[in-house]
């Protein structure tokens, strides 16, 4: 029974990490839009190339933040949460 409970904890942590990374969709769309607009801007005014590129990279990095939050949650779920949760379970059972 204890093995089953630990297995459920590990599986749920892995599933949760995978689902957390669905948040990667958002930054993908956002950065794609930003780069597309930057390409348009450079096409219209090629002399502004360096400035547009700098601003675009800056905006991309800021837009990436939500994806990175999801990444941090996923990493916590994979590397930190299983050990803690199994400890809690073993304490509750009294072993």
């Amino acid at each position, binding site marked *: 029974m204890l093995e089953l409970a630990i297995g459920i904890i590990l599986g749920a942590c892995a599933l949760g990490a995978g689902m957390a990374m669905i948040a990667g969709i958002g930054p993908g769309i956002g950065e794609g839009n930003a780069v597309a607009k930057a390409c348009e801007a450079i096409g219209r005014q090629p002399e502004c190339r360096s400035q547009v590129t700098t601003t675009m*990279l*800056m905006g991309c*990095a*800021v837009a*990436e*933040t939500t994806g*990175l*939050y999801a*990444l*941090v949650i996923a*990493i916590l779920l994979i*590397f930190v949460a299983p050990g803690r949760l199994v400890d809690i379970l073993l304490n509750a059972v009294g072993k």
Partner: protein
Amino acid sequence: MNKSNGKFRLVDFLLVLMMILPVAAGIVIKVLTTPQKEGIIIEGAMIFAEIPFPVMPILITETQVNSWLIMISIIGLALYLTHGIRAGVETKRQYLAEWIVESCQNMVSSNMGGYFKGFAPFITALLGLSAFSSLMSLTGLFPPTSDLNTTAGWALLTFILITYYKMKCGPVVYLKSFAEPPALAPLNIISEFATPISMAFRHYGNVLSGSVISVLVAAGLTGLSQVLLGRLPGFLGEFPFLRIGIPAVLSVYFDIFSGLLQAYIFAMLTMLYVAGAFPEEEYKKRHPEKA
């Protein structure tokens, strides 16, 4: 300048040693202290020692050791670039040092305005420390920026600076700035604290995700080469040939490009937030003699 002078060359040599030795020492420490492990394991900073302290023990981790080593290295680089500097004499390293100082001053004054001219050394130090910390992963050492504590410390510095400059016109103006549209006051307070948190997580997440993905790709290539080449006899079958060269492509993106970009963005956001926090018009109204 008498470059052939023996003493000058000796000091030069010692400064170059000061740049290289900390990194070499870091590699030696890593080789001596890393325990033997099977397979590929992803883990955080190693804990070298614990100093007993009332509430909780102070930990001496790999992060702290590596960031001190990188600080010594950067001091060596700065001393080397400015060694033998003088007006009118032009050497390559003097050009480089002047280019660094001038471009950083230009960046600060164009992004923050004239009032914040004195911020150039702080921003340059932040930029250099962050960039070299991330580049440290090229030598195989643990980059201090892939520990949340490092970036959180820097973000805390930024938060203190933001609050200090918002307080410049007294606490009443500071509190009023939260109730700009009064209905949004709770959101304003949350976003005030979200600024340093998001800065810390952005830098940390980028560097950490790079190293995690690099390790996963290396593990995958090991398995793939065992499947493909495992039937060859002896040494040829055991050696993971696919791991030669292919992870280097990822390293160029994650270690060099991403690390430098995040350093630039961290410095840029610090400048923008601090400059944006300063209520310039109100300050000019109250202190017409200083503005």
